[in-house]
């Protein structure tokens, strides 16, 4: 990366943007392959919202980096060690229940995060959050709708949904474990103390699980440090695909 991205406010924006971009990218992989046409369209809408949100964070970050840095420089020219997203969002899609479990967990967190960010001391972040909150409310309804239907649907869907919760719940501890980027953001008044979001998150998720007649699985938490740039092996492949064109033709503009 030829740009200096060490500035803490840039790091925080990258963290926020990376979650949105990587999850949006994963959801976009469903496009053309959804379980039913109507759902294909719904998943694409959510992916569009998320990639659109990532652009807003990156544009702001690029402006602060200065010197002509662009949103695409930040998305396409950082290595996986420089990405600051949660490990949860980079996990492969799995089946539709897996995608909905990952989505439910992230949407609930994202909703609470944006709610707090509306009052961010960083006025530009607050403005982005206010707009995104509306979209995210819809995302959270969408994933909750599906978790409820799959949990309380057929035997097969119930089994798959329960397995999906078990697969992704261990990734959620990272959401509430402050990393350097969170600590700095909290100290400077840009973002919430993520540990404080755990209670409300538990409440939101439990409410959905109860409607879905599903138990919250008892699973140990994974030790994850995606926010510090230590990711799962899958992110490298995701980025290799995503970044391939600009890197194959470094002199080209698109």
């Amino acid at each position, binding site marked *: 990366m030829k740009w200096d991205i060490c500035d803490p406010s840039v790091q925080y924006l990258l963290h926020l943007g990376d979650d949105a*971009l990587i999850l949006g*990218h994963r959801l*976009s*992989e469903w*496009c*053309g*392959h*959804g*379980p*039913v*046409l*109507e*759902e*294909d*369209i719904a998943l*694409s*809408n959510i*992916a*569009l919202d998320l*990639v*659109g949100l*990532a*652009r807003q964070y*990156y544009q702001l970050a690029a402006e602060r980096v200065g010197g002509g840095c662009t*949103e*695409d420089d930040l*998305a*396409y020219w950082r290595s996986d060690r420089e990405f600051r997203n949660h490990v949860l969002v980079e996990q492969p899609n799995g*089946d*539709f229940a897996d995608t909905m479990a990952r989505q439910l967990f992230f949407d609930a967190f994202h909703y609470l995060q944006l709610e707090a960010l509306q009052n961010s001391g960083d006025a530009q972040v607050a403005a982005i959050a206010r707009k995104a909150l509306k979209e995210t409310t819809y995302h959270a309804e969408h994933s909750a709708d599906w978790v*409820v*239907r*799959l949990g*309380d*649907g*057929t035997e*097969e*869907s119930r089994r*798959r949904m329960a397995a999906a919760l078990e697969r992704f719940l261990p990734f959620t501890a990272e959401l509430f474990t402050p990393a350097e980027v969170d600590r700095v953001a909290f100290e400077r008044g840009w973002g919430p103390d993520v540990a404080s979001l755990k209670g409300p998150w538990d409440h939101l998720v439990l409410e959905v699980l109860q409607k879905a007649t599903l138990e919250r699985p008892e699973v140990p938490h994974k030790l994850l440090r995606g926010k510090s740039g230590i990711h799962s092996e899958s992110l490298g492949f995701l980025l290799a*695909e*995503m970044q*391939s*064109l*600009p890197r194959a*033709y470094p*002199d*080209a*503009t*698109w």
Partner: protein
Amino acid sequence: MAPTVDLEARFLDYVAAENKVEPKDWMPDAYRKTLVRQISQHAHSEIVGMLPEANWITRAPSLRAKLILLAKVQDEGGHGLYLYSAAETLGTSRDQMVDDLLTGKAKYSSIFNYPTLTWADMGAVGWLVDGAAIQNQVMLCRTSYGPYSRAMVRICKEESFHQRQGYEIMMHLARGTQEQKAMAQDALNRWWWPSLMMFGPSDDKSPNSAQSMAWRIKRKSNDDLRQEFIDKTVPQAEFIGLTIPDPDLKWNEERGHYDFGAIDWTEFFAVVAGNGPCNTERLEARRKAHADGAWVREAATAYAAKHSARRAAPSPAASKAHAA
């Protein structure tokens, strides 16, 4: 009861006078069958057509390009949905139509059996394939069957950005580095002839054409549409410095149209018969999505059945207030 032949002749007069036919109106059986075949084929083309472009969503070279491509492919899903809905008004269920696609009984536009190999193909598909499709769709906005015509009006309104974004990609590439320009020309070379084939065989070899014209389902002949498309597209290629891969292409002052070389219809019929480069992959992908989604669709139905009691209609007064 008037004899059927009489009704059919009157029906011809009726549509010839530019009247629209609506779902519950009487229509000849063959008209209904032709429409179901054509509309569902059109819907399948939108759905299968998502695949070659979705192939590049995860590799779009900029965030802007990623958003545009995703929105475009999503639109195609929406268009497929509008068209399935239009066909359903004729009494054929979407399930049946999807089944016909997956078993290979129904066709879709054979253009989607070609691979998308480079980013320039996203440009060529938007510019040429959508361009050719729009040529056809604009005509179909005036088709005689009401629901089809209304779906087309909606689709044309939404499609307008599709061709422009494709051309924009080509323009950027054609004005970019040597490698980008070569990529653009290569894409044009590969997509040009298949795009011309999209309009279908010549009118003298297209037996259903005349009947469709009489029914006002179709408003222009395959050859006329193809000529319009070529006349429109050649100057667009010249403008960005790309060469149409047809040595016989020449402006004919007398005709006021471009003359063009012979189309290789053996290739067209081979692809239609299932032997194009990607026929197998495209159908496989649709079958897999459908099969993998079966338990999801069943689950939602089971849930709805369990909870239908709770959703029973509220009192009339309450529902009136709610609806307003």
